[in-house]
């Protein structure tokens, strides 16, 4: 269909049929003020702020639901329109408490801004205002009814965006109020989407309320350190303290989406249990020591063991940066001379890359989940385990009517929108997928998202199935943590080096390391393998880089206090292979980033494996790791650049038996979750997978 021609404020505008007047105006830089209209959510035309004059229409019209028409003449700044806006604001303010000086939203409130720009200078209202006491609906969500302007944004984002539908409106007229799903409290995802989308200070968060004025913080855009989805989160930092996390500027792959972890579970950073000094075992007990003492103790031990040809092993992290992982494996291989390096593997990425050898464009991006016509989810409770991917798929369904298929071991939220859902028995996923063949064949294209149920040979079978459909198929191999994918790509593996290059002499794998009775030195960086396993070697000298005194750290001879992801620079790679930049928001006294710790140890040992600044290491990664030759400006400017696949045979067996998701829910996050008060304080924690919809 051809474009429609109209005139807005004297300017000729061309817009696609169906475009709303408010958006057509935006195209030519004319802003029509609005409260209830929100991009991506259904229009409700509740606030009347967007009234405009349209020629030949007797009354003012709402620009947020009126589509453009041929020859339409719109005026957005006529005296009538300005008068109407003034009136709308006056009505919105009749019962508004105007407690801006103590309101959390003060300074970033849309009602303040609109009143400033379009409102009347004085109020004619002298009647008593209706007061309703503030309510706490959960540790996270607070509600102040008098401030609410009933724009329904919160109701819609919870229902449409989150698929939770926990908010509604009770009573009528001046008494109408937003209400939570359990009369006086909420049982929901606790994501805080409703709070951030609220244009006024009606919904506020337990983490942030009454802590600061917004202009007292500085804002640091970085990547959430919890799950593998890689959401951009903007940390509000004041005096070296993170006060809030959100993404209101909608930058990054996730727009404004964040789950409870990205938005609120940054509090582990300030946990009183945070390690802030190196510790050295003296007479059997760990004692705080200086960095110099700890570094020299480790360097001496490593040198001594290396000199006598002793046995080393390293377990790396799913949370540390690509630079740190790369540097760690380089340190292990070059400085220690060992290939016994591994990490907790949560998905079979190497086998997927092997199976896709020779294909291009077969790895889906997070954007593909929003744009592709059909999605098949196998073996994952996506809304629990991969909240942002689930959000993308929900939006795809709402905006593009995408066809969704699920094959899961229990009920999942995605079922509500699925054209077909199969309850499978673990181990039978592939048979059940086979039964979808005819339906999938009829789709124009497909993205297959699969969890740890599909690994090893199963991945090859799945890709063969995808090939046989005769349609373009893309894949996402689900992994758990913020840099699980990067750990795999950077070669934290006994058989595969960076970029999945085979290693000539393989070292010990995860289970073999723990079982080796003759280990001399065991270095663990940001992982907690001893939570569930014992270390067989009693004589092993154990070095641990950690934020907390975990089970593994308790066994250490030396503990280095590590910086968290929010305190460092570098890059991480998300579940879809998208590389994004971490930006340090603060420093926690006494800690150091793992990259620096490894660098300092090698320096102390007198070994040079290269400069340990994050940008120099990233340069090396870009030139030497397959797939990472990504455009620098994209990453440097805070964007996401997808790595290219290996496109060749990935030789080593992926040891499917070692691959296991930790089955974190929305309210757990490996060891990190234990130290986040917010995560453990909500009623829904720890939650479970495949538990169906909450009542």
């Amino acid at each position, binding site marked *: 269909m051809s474009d429609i021609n109209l005139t807005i404020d004297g300017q000729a505008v061309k817009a696609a049929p169906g475009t709303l007047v408010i958006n057509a105006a935006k195209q030519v830089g004319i802003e029509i003020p609005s409260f209830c209209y929100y991009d991506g959510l259904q229009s409700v035309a509740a606030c009347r702020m967007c009234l405009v004059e349209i020629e030949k229409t007797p009354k003012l019209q709402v620009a947020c639901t009126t589509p453009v028409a041929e020859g339409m003449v719109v005026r957005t700044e006529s005296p009538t329109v300005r008068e109407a806006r003034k009136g709308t604001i006056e009505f919105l303010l009749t019962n508004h408490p105007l407690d801006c000086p103590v309101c959390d939203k003060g300074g970033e409130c849309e009602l303040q801004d609109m009143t400033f720009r379009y409102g009347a200078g004085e109020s004619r209202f002298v009647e008593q205002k209706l007061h309703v006491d503030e309510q706490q609906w959960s540790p996270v969500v607070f509600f102040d009814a008098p401030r609410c302007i009933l724009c329904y944004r919160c109701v819609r984002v919870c229902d449409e965006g989150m698929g939770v*539908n*926990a*908010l*509604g*409106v*009770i*009573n*009528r007229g001046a008494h*109408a109020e937003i*209400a*939570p*799903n*359990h*009369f006086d409290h909420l049982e929901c995802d606790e994501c805080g989407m409703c709070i951030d989308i609220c244009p006024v200070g009606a919904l506020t968060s337990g983490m942030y309320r009454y802590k600061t004025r917004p202009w007292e913080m500085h804002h640091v855009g970085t990547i959430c350190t919890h799950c593998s989805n890689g959401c951009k989160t903007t940390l509000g930092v004041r005096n070296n303290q993170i006060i809030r996390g959100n993404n209101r500027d909608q930058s990054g792959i996730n727009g404004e989406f964040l789950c409870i972890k990205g938005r609120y579970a940054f509090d582990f950073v300030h946990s009183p249990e945070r390690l802030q000094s190196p510790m050295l075992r003296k007479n059997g007990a760990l004692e705080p020591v200086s960095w110099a003492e700890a570094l020299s103790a480790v360097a001496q031990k490593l040198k001594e063991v290396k000199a006598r040809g002793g046995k080393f092993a390293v377990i790396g992290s799913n949370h540390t940066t690509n630079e740190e992982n790369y540097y760690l494996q380089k340190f292990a291989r070059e400085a220690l001379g060992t290939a016994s390096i591994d990490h907790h593997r949560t998905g079979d990425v190497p086998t997927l890359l092997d199976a896709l050898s020779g294909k291009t464009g077969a790895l889906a991006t997070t954007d593909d989940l929003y744009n592709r016509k059909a999605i098949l989810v196998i073996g994952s409770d996506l809304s629990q385990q991969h909240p942002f991917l689930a959000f993308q798929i929900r939006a795809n369904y709402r905006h593009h009517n995408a066809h969704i298929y699920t094959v899961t071991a229990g009920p999942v939220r995605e079922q509500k929108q699925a054209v077909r859902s199969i309850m499978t028995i673990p181990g039978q996923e592939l048979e059940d997928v086979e039964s979808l063949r005819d339906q999938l064949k009829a789709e124009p294209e497909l993205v297959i998202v699969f969890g740890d149920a599909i690994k090893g040979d199963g991945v090859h079978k799945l890709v063969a199935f995808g090939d046989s459909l005769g349609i373009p198929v893309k894949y996402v191999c689900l992994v758990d943590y913020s840099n699980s994918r990067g750990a795999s790509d950077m070669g934290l593996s006994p058989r595969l080096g960076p970029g999945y290059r085979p290693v000539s002499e393989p070292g010990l794998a995860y289970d073999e390391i723990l079982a080796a009775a003759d280990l001399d030195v065991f270095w663990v960086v940001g992982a907690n393998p001893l939570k569930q396993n014992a270390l067989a070697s009693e004589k092993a000298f154990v070095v641990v880089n950690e934020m907390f005194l975990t089970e593994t750290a308790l066994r250490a001879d030396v503990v280095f206090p590590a910086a968290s992801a929010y305190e460092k620079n570098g890059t991480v790679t998300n579940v879809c292979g998208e590389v994004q930049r971490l930006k340090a928001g603060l420093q926690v006294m006494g800690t150091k980033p793992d990259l620096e710790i490894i660098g300092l140890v090698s320096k102390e040992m007198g070994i040079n494996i290269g400069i340990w600044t994050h940008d120099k290491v990233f340069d090396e990664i870009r030139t030497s790791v397959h797939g990472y030759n990504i455009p620098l400006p994209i990453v440097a400017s805070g964007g996401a650049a997808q790595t290219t696949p290996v496109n060749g045979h990935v030789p080593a067996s992926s040891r499917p038996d070692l691959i296991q998701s930790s089955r974190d829910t929305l309210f757990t996050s490996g060891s990190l979750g234990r130290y986040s008060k917010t995560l453990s304080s909500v009623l829904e924690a720890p939650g479970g997978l495949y538990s169906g919809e909450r009542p």
Partner: protein
Amino acid sequence: MTFSPELEARFAKMLESYPPGRTRSAVVPMLLYAQDEVGHISHELIEEVARRCKVTPLQVDEVVGYYSMLHKKPQGKVHVQVCTNISCLIDGGEELFQHASKTLGIGNKETTPDGQFSLEEVECIGACSWAPAIQMNYDFHHHVTPEKLDKLIDELRRKQ
């Protein structure tokens, strides 16, 4: 929650009289009839209606708050509703309401301590031709004067 056999039968029939997947249409009548039997709309009742109509309790709560004939607070055995909308107002509806308030000793939306009467000022009840009009539970009374009202209340008191 269970109701009397008659009401249960009524609900069963009600749920069948809407097209498949439209059980939510039964929310309003179910609330109304259940309120008559239970006396008011409790949280428990809201949850029960939600379960039967396959909607969330909050969705039922939204309906309850919207309609003024659905009451969350226990009403008196006789709910006296005095119209003070325009036709009745002209014919003395306002005075009638004040009088009812004095006679019963309670204000708008209040219940007598013995739980026998409750009073509510309501909008037009569609009996304008016979203004001022009042409604006691489901019974209408027309051309009501303060004396007539006192007599009605007296009779009801004696019956109790």
